[in-house]
């Protein structure tokens, strides 16, 4: 048992129900009364200062039910109506799951609070970590668990008039919402909305301030060319100065986490393309890495090199888009087009390798869809030449440009302590001067074999974010060049037909291959019961996946921890006090990707 678990148990014996390490993750199951003291202890005494995530799991589908008399598997895709409620697991229905990170050594701790259905209230963690505010809102929105003491407990991804809590297991995938009044479209009946356990007064957003009649409240977005994602920022302005702001997201919420429960483990991969859709390969890699952690398997070394290569070219594409858009929206159109030209080369390379520019769907549990094609090295070298040439041109126009510097320097400042408290990761955190990078602090795949630099900023302003991203592009290309020479030959998939589809000649010609193929497609790879969290360094920061398995080939719960979700919480602090025109480069500097933040 890890040191963390021992110390928590010793300090709070009355609160801890269970402490164990599951697949390498230290997990503590607590009574809800102990949540705030344990969180405070972890933050102040044990160094877990980075709040990653709060999510929940509806355990009702895990309750044992009587088996059918004949084995007929139930592929979830074709059953849109909800499962009948089988029963409650030992008095509690929900598990509220917290993840915290100690940046120094990359250690993770997971806390779980068990909540009964008729009393689903948990004390808020926002007093300890302000960066968990939006995550708690999401748990409330999706599961109906209320957080007592939360300053702003509103729905975040669904619209306010939404009825019910969609990630509950008794909410059907095609649940019909009352506001949906379209002829010919009739969804499935939804369960009645649960009565609130704790009455919370409706939150007044940007209330009218009688002391300042000169303030005006305007909408920035969602129909705004710079609010790509989409996002809506409600601003309270005093002339051009931002006095207060409220960020509204959820416009691109498509029910990713619900759809993950609709198929096998591999059928989730096309959905992960559509999370951060500017660097989809990173999401592909992150998701299958989590399932492989739960399965306890390691992919062959060549596969690891390929996954790193793909992640890095995706990262370059992501940063080129971020930097290009940031320049574009303060008026620099030419560097944007050069960034797009460079990105185009990379998209062609991705299509060359995976078959599609953006909807790559390349990784599979246990390996990849196929190996790299012949000629990939030459293709990469050709792409890299263009990217580097356009980078030089972009920097020549931007980095020492007075207008650019004046618009970006000291604008949108976020200091390191606040950044960590908000749960910032990625280029935004590093721009604030904190040197946390999942590839460095918690190396995965073959990052520990590569030489690269992790750039950090000093002031945490927009200029630092721009500079960090530009340097990261160079470092990614440096890593790719190393991979070109270092990548070994060998197999790309694990050699186990319970995980990976057999090769096609075995499927066509042998009954064994055919049966393994059928079982994997019909029922998926059986993953042992349990849960796991795994993170990769995405374009925006730590992209974490938390998966729960009920022992079958169909995921029970898949949760994505989006890096820009945490960062957008901090946007308000970064724009309040600044000018209206500064909102745009600051927002661009965060590089919010709608698919990732809203899922």
């Amino acid at each position, binding site marked *: 048992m890890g040191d963390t678990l021992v110390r928590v148990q010793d300090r709070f014996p009355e609160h801890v129900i269970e402490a164990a390490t599951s697949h390498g993750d230290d997990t503590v199951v607590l009574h809800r009364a102990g949540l705030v003291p344990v969180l405070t202890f972890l933050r102040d005494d044990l160094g877990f200062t980075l709040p990653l995530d709060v999510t929940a799991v509806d355990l009702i589908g895990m309750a044992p039910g009587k088996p059918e008399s*004949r*084995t*007929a598997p139930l592929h979830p895709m*074709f059953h849109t109506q909800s499962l009948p409620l089988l029963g409650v697991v030992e008095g509690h229905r929900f598990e509220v799951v917290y993840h915290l990170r100690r940046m120094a050594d990359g250690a993770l701790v997971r806390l779980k609070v068990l909540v009964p259905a008729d009393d689903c209230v948990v004390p808020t963690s926002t007093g300890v970590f302000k960066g968990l505010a939006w995550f708690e809102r999401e748990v409330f929105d999706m599961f109906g668990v209320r957080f007592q003491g939360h300053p702003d407990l509103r729905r975040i991804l669904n619209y306010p008039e939404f009825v019910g809590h969609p990630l509950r297991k008794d909410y059907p995938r095609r649940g019909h919402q009352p506001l949906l009044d379209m002829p010919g479209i009739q969804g499935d009946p939804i369960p009645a909305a649960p009565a609130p356990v704790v009455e919370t007064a409706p939150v007044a957003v940007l209330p009218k301030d009688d002391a300042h009649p000169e303030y005006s409240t305007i909408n920035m977005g969602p129909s705004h060319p710079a609010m790509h994602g989409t996002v809506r920022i409600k601003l309270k302005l005093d002339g051009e100065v931002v006095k207060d702001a409220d960020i509204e997201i959820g416009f691109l919420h498509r029910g990713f986490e619900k759809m993950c429960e609709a198929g096998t483990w591999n059928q989730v991969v096309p959905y992960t393309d559509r999370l951060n859709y500017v660097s989809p390969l990173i999401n592909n890699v992150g998701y299958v890495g989590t399932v492989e952690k739960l399965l306890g398997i390691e992919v062959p070394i060549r596969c690891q090199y390929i996954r790193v290569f793909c992640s890095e070219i995706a990262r370059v594409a992501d940063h080129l888009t971020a930097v290009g858009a940031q320049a574009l929206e303060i008026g620099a159109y030419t560097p944007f087009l050069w960034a797009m030209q460079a990105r185009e080369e990379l998209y062609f390379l991705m299509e060359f390798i995976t078959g599609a520019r953006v909807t790559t769907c390349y990784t599979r549990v246990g390996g990849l869809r196929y190996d790299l094609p012949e000629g990939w090295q030459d293709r990469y070298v050709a792409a890299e030449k263009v990217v580097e040439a356009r980078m030089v041109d972009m920097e020549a126009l931007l980095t020492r440009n007075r207008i650019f510097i004046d618009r970006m320097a000291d604008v949108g400042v976020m200091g390191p302590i606040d950044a960590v408290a908000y749960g910032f990761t990625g280029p935004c955190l590093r721009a604030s001067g904190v040197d946390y990078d999942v590839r460095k602090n918690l190396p995965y795949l073959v990052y520990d074999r590569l030489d690269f630099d992790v750039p950090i900023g000093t002031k945490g302003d927009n200029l630092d974010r721009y500079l960090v991203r530009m340097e990261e592009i160079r470092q990614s290309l440096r890593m790719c060049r190393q991979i070109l020479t270092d990548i070994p030959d060998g197999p790309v998939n694990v050699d186990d*037909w319970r995980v990976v589809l057999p090769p096609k000649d*075995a499927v066509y010609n*042998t*009954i*064994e291959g055919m*049966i393994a193929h059928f079982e994997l497609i019909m029922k998926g790879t059986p993953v042992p019961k349990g849960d796991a969290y795994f993170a990769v360094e995405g374009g925006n920061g730590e992209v974490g996946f938390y998966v729960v398995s009920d022992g079958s080939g169909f995921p029970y719960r898949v949760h994505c921890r989006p890096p820009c979700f945490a960062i957008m919480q901090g946007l308000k602090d970064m724009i309040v006090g600044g000018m209206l025109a500064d909102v745009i480069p600051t927002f661009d500097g965060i590089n919010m990707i709608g698919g990732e933040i809203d899922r």
Partner: protein
Amino acid sequence: MPTLTIDGREITVEPGTRIIEAADRLGIDIPRFCYHPGLPVAGNCRMCLVDTNRSPKPVASCWDPCQEGHVVTTNSPRILEARRSVLEYILLNHPVDCPICDQAGECELQDLYFAHDHQASRHPFHKHHKDKARVLGPQIVYDAERCINCTRCIRVCEEVAKAPQLVQVQRGERAYIDVFPGTQLDHPYSMCTADVCPVGALTTRDFRFKCRAWLTHGIQTVCGECSRGCGIRADVYRNEVQRLVPRHNPDVNQYWACDHGRLAYHRFETGRVAAVRIGGATTDYAKGVREVAEALPGAALRGVAVVLTPWMTDEDAWAVVTAIRSVAPGATFAVGGAAPGAADEVLVLADKNPNRNGLARVLADLAVTPVALDEIVAQAPALGALIVFGAEHAKAEALAGALARVPLSIVLAALEGPLTAAARFVFPSTSPYETDGTWVNEQGVVQRVRRAVQPAGDVRDFAVWASDLADRLGQPLPAPARASGGNP
């Protein structure tokens, strides 16, 4: 009462219990092909081998009876290798048929290979070819290449159906199953052979190529074709019943069901009453209920007669009687139903209605003494209203005549027929696969009929119609009559 240990877990069983049965009770899954809990033991597949302290060689747990002090191991390396070898042996000549075989998704060979073998083939030679897609009878097709010769089908015919129509012919790798020359596999339980077949050797013609098993979801319900009430599972895909298979119910039908009951869902595929009709003209449900509610009190002055059907659930019966009585306390009730038919010594009973018993209990509870059906037919000219539930009545022609003579004639039925043609008001009602409620079978076993298919349009349960009518009459029923229990 011997006590034995299986994989370190102790259990005490009745004398004569086989090791595999004891393991099943402990939740330890010993793989098997030829063993079936409802059939006599054969012991030919060798998949269920276990190590015991009573024998130097592995023993067949389906055969070996439990003894005092038995120590059984089901997962030693030798046993795991034995299982793998048995599977490899069976697969040597097994055709690469999964894409065209209906059993895919519920095939015990597929599942056991995946769980216990999952190795590549070591067999570079030709496979032995036999007859494929041979029709053995009106309901069954046989593929000899897929057959693993477990003989479950032969034992089903001999022991369950008491009609030994199948035999195993030839020997060794040439063995296969066949019927006697000039005969067919045509006893009333022939489809049970496809149920027990662990692979796709025996498949039903009714389900052939219709739908893939893993696309369906199964709803546990009860067959309504006779008063035995065999437990069945309705496999549904895209809101249509694709097939019915028997469900294990130790109190009623064990593992079996007759072919007739399993094919009964076809009856409800066509000829459904599609919409509410008043005087032959289609209208909507709300209007239909409203007009009945307006006309019924007046008709009640002359007299209301109701023909109930022993197909209706207990909830339907309670709701209907209560609702009608609220406006017509003197209403007379009769019980109709399908005519009796042939019975056999296995499962089929003569009463071809599923809930006569349950209906009688509900009527007794509500202090209703049903009159004879003939009496109602005779009374017809004097009646104000005649309401008939269900279309399958033995005396349908007489009832149709009676309906024609009554001013307010109402029929609620799922299928069109002489009754729906004769009535002024016609309401579409649910088929047995759309109904949800309680049936009590002839033995007195209370069972839950579950909705497998969502009804379309204005189709309603009798109970829902009665409840809506009662609302319209200003006398809402005390609580929705909904079943809440479940089948095992």
